[in-house]
C-alpha cells in the first residue's frame, strides 16, 4: 500500500465538505411529516368572498369589546373579539356544519366561546346557496388583546388534514374597541 498521493487530496476534502453541506441543505429543505396532508388554505380579506371546498365565507367585520351580550339576556365582561361573516355551503348540506372556528394567537388556539346562548354560536349548519350571517365570539386573555391573530374557519372539527380552511390575518391592535357589543343570533343574511 502506498500513501495517498498529495495531489488531489485537497479536491477530495472539498468534495467531502461539499457533500456534507449538500446533505445539510437537503435536511433543511425537507418538509415535515405533516406537510403532505396539510389543509388547503384560502387567505381571506375583509369584504371579499373566500372559497374552499363546499364553503364560501365573506368576513364583514372584526372588532373588540370589553362587554358583550346576546339576544337572550346573557352578558359578560372580558376581552372579546367578535368577527361577523356571511357563510354558505356550495354543493352539499351533508357535513356542512362550520365546526372549526379558531382564533390563533401565537401558540394559543381559542375556540368560539361556549358561554353565549346556542343561537349565537357561529358553529352552525350552513345552507347551500343561501348565506347566513354569523358572528364568531372569542374570549381571549388580556395579554393577547393587541396581538397578531389568525382566524381559521372550516368544517373539520378535529382533523383538518387535506380539507379546506379559510384563514384571515387580524391585527387585534388595529381593531375598533367597543365598550359593549351584542352577539346577534345566527340568521339568514340580508
Amino acid at each position, binding site marked *: 500500500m502506498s500513501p495517498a498521493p498529495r495531489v488531489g487530496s485537497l479536491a477530495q476534502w472539498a468534495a467531502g465538505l461539499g457533500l456534507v453541506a449538500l446533505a445539510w441543505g437537503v435536511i433543511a429543505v425537507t418538509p415535515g411529516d405533516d406537510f403532505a396532508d396539510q389543509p388547503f388554505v384560502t387567505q381571506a380579506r375583509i369584504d371579499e368572498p373566500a372559497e374552499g371546498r363546499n364553503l364560501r365565507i365573506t368576513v364583514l367585520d372584526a372588532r373588540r369589546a370589553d362587554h358583550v351580550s346576546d339576544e337572550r339576556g346573557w352578558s359578560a365582561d372580558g376581552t372579546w373579539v367578535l368577527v361577523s361573516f356571511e357563510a354558505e355551503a*356550495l*354543493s352539499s348540506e351533508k357535513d356542512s356544519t362550520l365546526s372549526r372556528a379558531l382564533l390563533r394567537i401565537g401558540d394559543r388556539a381559542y375556540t368560539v366561546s361556549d358561554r353565549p346562548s346556542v343561537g349565537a354560536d357561529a358553529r352552525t349548519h350552513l345552507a347551500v346557496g*343561501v348565506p347566513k350571517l354569523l358572528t364568531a365570539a372569542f374570549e381571549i386573555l388580556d395579554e393577547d388583546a393587541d396581538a397578531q391573530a389568525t382566524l381559521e374557519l372550516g368544517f373539520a372539527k378535529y382533523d383538518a388534514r387535506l380539507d379546506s380552511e379559510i384563514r384571515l390575518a387580524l391585527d387585534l391592535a388595529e381593531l375598533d374597541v367597543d365598550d359593549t357589543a351584542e352577539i346577534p343570533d345566527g340568521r339568514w343574511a340580508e
Partner: protein
Amino acid sequence: MSAPRPSWLRRNAAALGALAVLLPTATFVIGAQEWVTAEGYLPFAAIEVPAGDTTDYAGTTYGPATVRHATPADELDVPAGAMGLVLEFDIAPGDEAQLCSVTLREAEGEQREWLATGNRAPCTSDATGPYEGSLAFVVPEDAGPFTADVEVSRLESAPTMFPPFIRFLLD
C-alpha cells in the same frame, strides 16, 4: 465453442412478461379495494321513480312524491333570494321497520343537495298504516329541477355493500 449468449432481454423475457401483467393487476386490485372501502357503503344504485309513480322496496311502498312551494301556513323562515319547498311523499309500510333519510338534489348541473330544515324524521318506524311524510327545504331561487333521494336504512334484508336508494323524479 458454444453459441453466443442470448441478450439480457431475451433471457428475462418470462419475468418481464409477468411483471407487465402483475404490476397493472396489483395496481387495479389495491385501487379497487381502496375504492370499495371508501365508496362501497354509500348509496350506490338509484331506483328511479318517475313523477307520480310508486316503488316497492323491501315490502314497503314509497311514493308518489311531489314538491310544492311553501305557503305562509308552512311557517318557513325564507330569506330574500331563496324559496321554500315542501316535499310530500306517501309511505305504505310493510312488515319491516324502516328508517330513511331524504336529500333534495338538483337533477342537472352542479347537482347541489339540500337537507330538510328542522328535525322532523321523514319515515317513522312505528306507523302501522300508510302515512304521508312531509319535509321542508330552503333553497336558492335559481335551483332546480329536483330529485328526492331516499336512503332507507336499518333494514335487516338490505345489502350493506352498494346499498340501493330510491330517487323520485320531481316535476
